[in-house]
């Protein structure tokens, strides 16, 4: 049986790949949505933090023998610390100003990071091997599913659900959300809001680094890997609704599936379809699919 000329097993295989990519987009856009939703900062350095996360994993492996599992924890921690520094020293001063200044600052930081890494490592990229425990795959009949890709879906979605739960259903999350709406009142209650904001930015950056480590065995680790993805991730966040955590998760997965369908039927358009959808969504629902109008 074929759907528009494509046999059903092939379609299933592509949709499964779309799920993998979609969950990857979801965890990457999650950090961005958290930072914008809670801090009102457009973090253009997200792609660079993703790339630095992947590079820390690679450098850790080649110089220090740090394995993949340790990298999953160490890399986000290190990038989180970097995030703390960025927020304390630079970003903090821009909160009272227009959103654009935050965007410009983080964009500039991204360019610097990319340039430094490109200077030392070139653009061809470095190879990062799939960890032993996840090598090989499962033959599902309609396609061969690498174990590593299955792990990406599990890890990414787990982290997404955990983050959503923490922000929407716990006391800490409630405090964070309150702090963004009425900072003065929350501070009057004795809660240290500036520290909360620093930690929020650091968490967003750490999530980017986590996605970076996840992607390191799938693609060549190179300084340009972040800049390719950041535009797509922004589109995901905009479609989902700039402040909505759930929105970015659902949209990420959804767009991964749509991209996969496009690749099956008209591969050349697969990098354009996300922006087409973004344009349509913005015309019909300017606040995004799950967004709250300000």
């Amino acid at each position, binding site marked *: 049986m074929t759907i528009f000329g494509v046999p059903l097993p092939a379609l299933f*295989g592509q949709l499964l*790949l779309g799920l993998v990519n979609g969950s990857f987009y979801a965890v990457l856009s999650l950090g961005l949505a958290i930072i914008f939703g809670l801090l009102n900062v457009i973090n253009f350095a997200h792609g660079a933090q993703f790339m630095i996360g992947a590079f820390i994993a690679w450098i850790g492996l080649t110089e220090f023998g740090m394995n993949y599992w340790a990298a999953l924890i160490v890399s986000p921690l290190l990038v989180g610390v970097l995030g703390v520094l960025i927020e304390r020293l630079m970003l903090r001063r821009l909160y009272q100003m227009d959103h654009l200044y935050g965007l410009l600052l983080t964009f500039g930081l991204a360019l610097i990071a990319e340039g430094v890494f490109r200077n030392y490592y070139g*653009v061809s990229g470095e190879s990062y091997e799939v960890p032993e425990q996840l090598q090989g795959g499962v033959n599902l009949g309609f396609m061969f599913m690498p174990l590593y890709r299955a792990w990406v879906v599990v890890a990414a979605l787990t982290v997404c659900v955990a983050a959503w739960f923490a922000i929407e259903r716990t006391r800490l999350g409630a405090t964070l959300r309150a702090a963004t709406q009425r900072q003065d009142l929350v501070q009057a209650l004795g809660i240290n809001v500036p520290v909360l904001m620093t930690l929020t930015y650091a968490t967003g950056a750490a999530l980017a680094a986590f996605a970076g480590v996840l992607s390191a065995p799938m693609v060549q680790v190179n300084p340009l890997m972040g800049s390719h993805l950041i535009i797509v991730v922004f589109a995901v966040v905009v479609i989902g609704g700039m402040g909505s955590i759930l929105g970015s998760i659902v949209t990420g997965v959804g767009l991964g599936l749509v991209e996969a369908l496009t690749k099956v039927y008209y591969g050349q358009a697969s990098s354009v379809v996300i922006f087409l959808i973004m344009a349509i969504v913005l015309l019909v629902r300017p606040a995004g699919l799950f967004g709250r109008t300000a």
Partner: protein
Amino acid sequence: MRVKLLIPAAILALTLGSAAHAQVADGVVKVGVLTDLSGTYSDLSGQGALVATQMAIDDFVAQEKPSFKVEMVYADHQNKADIAANKAREWFERDNVDVVTDLVTSSTALAVMKIAKEKNRIALVSGAGSTRITNEDCNDATVHWAYDTYSLAYGTAKQVVLHGGKTWYFLTADYAFGLSLEKDSTDIILASGGSVLGAARHPFPGNADFSSFLLKAQASGAQVIGLANAGTDTTNSIKQAAEFGITPKQTLAGLLVFITDVHSLGLKAAQGLYLTEGFYWDLNDGTRAWSKRFFEKHKKMPTMAQAGDYSSIMHYLKAVKAVNSDDAQKVMAQMKKTRIDDFFTHNGRIRDDGRMVHDMYLFQVKKPSESTGAWDYYKLIATIPAEEGFQSLSASRCPLVKK
């Protein structure tokens, strides 16, 4: 020397000297290197192209002691044809640049070639590959130096078909170069008795995940998957093909692979890959000596694009000196008249369609156990003679070729 002859000789020398200055505009020859300095192709060309061109200029000035000065300018075209075209136009109209070189990424080469013809300057293409440069879009202001998609296909595709890889499926970068490579390879595969089952076109640039396209290739059941792309697209494709269990059941044919790609993939992932190149640093004493000097400056071994940059600029500068002028028509005529005999090739010549024909080489990537160290990656399988490896003039679609 006799005193009687001295004075007329001195006057003659003086007038000749000033005549030379009057012929080479302002006494300066400006070389513009237009390349990808920051994107996908910056490792195979990029900074190394600047190093190679500067080496050619320095060596020329030191060896030939010309009466004119040679300067180099450079710019990053970011793989975008419109940026390349604007820069070339600015260089030709405002900055008196005489020749533009490298031009990696076929879309930029095709755009700049037209402008070079319009402004009566010269374009020397070492970075790009599309055969359109010497066919539909040919002009007499351009020389296509290092390689093209026909010669790559002739080397690799033909060899793989002869070795039993009869059915093919292509993974193609959706722009001028990828499509050209796919078409030229298809022609050769069909002529050698193979068949092409289909092609999956992926966006260029900016695509890092090839899993969907590779899945299509796998589903086709083809014996060989031809990678009609380059740079990080190729290395990601190879890596992901291994991840999805596509290799070793199906063979991968890297239709354009540079030594920098093999270096970043590592021999474990790249071993056994067949590829065709126009230059390899370890071919003979001449290539080794030049590459060693290049390595000292750039810290990486040269790719054929970078070696081509040196060779083409050196040939150009020698032609300028020989005709004592930077007029494009005169220099080009001189370039086409003289053979190229340097470390890059010993029997190179430029044809009417602008194609510089030279020997190409079929390599196979060594196994990790066969390699003695970094950059020792290729074993030579065959040398493809110049007259055979490039499309013959009788099949040419170039209007300049007299049939």
